[in-house]
């Protein structure tokens, strides 16, 4: 459900579960982290990948965690939060630019994943955000990346307000960096940007990305551990269980 391919100097990781809008499972998050890690071992400066595109199959990038996993396994949400934190950090530490083709939607865990990329491409009709406090779930795990991308003030609003935002607003607040007309064009534009970056000297890019990670603190383990801890503290708790159960009842 996570595919890795190489197109010239660009690696492409595709979340491939289109019938579920690429909803994430613990296994997908593990595979994603492994795929990203495998690029790290080859990078940088060789004839291997010099840029990475992360995309979703079909019209929607990623609908977030597959919450149906939690129905039979109360531990699933903890596993997904931990997997998301790991995958996001692997993306951030990958010493090459990572471009997210977040067309259609990047919801909750999907938005967190998109925010850990360097460059985010989306479309005006996309929905982005963290509509999860309604479910008793805390998006705190995404805090360090989101705050690095859009500033702490805006991150506060986006994580506490369960309303999603459209592509234009995402561009305005700096969550997105480029807009394409629709989800297909998003993938093409992300690839175009990745190819342009892959043509640049890779050591300079890697050094610049490492330094930016240090300047904005987005690779600091203690920050991520704290953020993950805040989300995990609620996992399996009463409020979350009741609110998730209410979804199952509604069917």
């Amino acid at each position, binding site marked *: 459900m996570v595919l890795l391919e190489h197109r010239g100097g660009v690696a492409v990781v595709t979340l491939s579960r289109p019938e579920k809008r690429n909803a994430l499972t613990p296994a997908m998050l593990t595979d994603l982290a492994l795929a990203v890690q495998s690029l790290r071992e080859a990078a940088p*400066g060789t004839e291997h990948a010099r840029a990475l595109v992360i995309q979703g199959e079909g019209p929607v990038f990623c609908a977030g965690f597959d919450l149906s996993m939690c129905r039979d396994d109360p531990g699933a949400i903890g596993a997904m939060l931990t997997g998301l934190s790991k995958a996001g950090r692997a993306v951030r530490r990958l010493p090459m*630019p990572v471009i997210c083709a977040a067309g259609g939607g990047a919801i909750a865990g999907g938005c967190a994943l998109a925010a850990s990329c*360097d*460059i985010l491409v989306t479309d005006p009709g996309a929905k982005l955000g963290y509509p999860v406090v309604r479910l008793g779930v805390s998006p705190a795990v995404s805090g360090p990346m989101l705050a*690095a*991308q*859009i*500033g702490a003030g805006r991150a506060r609003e986006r994580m506490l307000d369960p309303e999603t935002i459209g592509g234009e607003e995402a561009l305005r607040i*700096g*969550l997105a*960096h480029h807009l394409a007309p629709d989800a297909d064009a998003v993938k093409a534009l992300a690839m175009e*940007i990745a190819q*342009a*970056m892959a043509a*640049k*000297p*890779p*050591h*300079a*890019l890697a*050094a*610049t*990305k490492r*330094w*930016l990670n240090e*300047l*904005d603190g*987005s690779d600091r383990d203690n920050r991520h551990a704290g953020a993950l801890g805040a989300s995990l503290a609620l996992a399996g708790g009463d409020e979350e269980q009741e609110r998730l159960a209410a979804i199952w009842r509604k069917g």
Partner: protein
Amino acid sequence: MGAELATLSIDNGVATLTLNRPDARNAMSPPLLDALHARVDELAKAREARAVVITGAGKSFCAGMDLKAVLDEPGAPARLLQSIGELTLKVRALPMPTIARVNGAAIGGGCGLACVCDLGVTHDDSKMGYPEVDLGVCPAVVAPWLVKKIGAGQARRVLLEGGTMSGRRAWELGLVTECVSADKLDETVAAIAERIASGGRKALAATKGWLNELDGSLDAAMVRRGAMISAEVVGSDEAQRTLRAKFAGR
């Protein structure tokens, strides 16, 4: 001694610091940087100046580090980067507000000098940006100022995508505070400088000092580490190859 590479004049509370190497688009060579350091040291003690305008003579603001001048001299690129880092720290620490008058291209280290100023004014036809990665070099030394000015997320995009942008786009990103048509640049800068210089010297210094403290601008270690990282990358085979190919192609 020939014409001064950096000139300073003070008129009615407003100081103007001019990079004066127009035939080289005001590229920062070691002598130009030495001259800038000397002028900024003078400014730090110039009690009559309540605002500073920094600008370039001729058509450009500043084309950035003059790497061509130092590429063959061992250790020289590192010294140049260190000097740029120290210069930006000095400009930031000046007690009076600084206004970049971005009269034309502000590229790489030149964009860094514009960015470290408290305010910036440019025009629609200017060009700004950080194309360092395109040349195999790393903008680490000036990155801290960009992160403080436009936020880390936008800085990431600007520095990793490289290239340059229009003055208008720079204004949209918050890299400069005003963008006007080219014929309005002088009057706009004059009006802002005059407005700022109408403030009390102590009030301006206290406010700027507190803003510097709030955003960590006085953390010299960060800029110095950035200079070291930039120097390491300039010394790499990749950078040497890319730069030499670029200079040979000119």
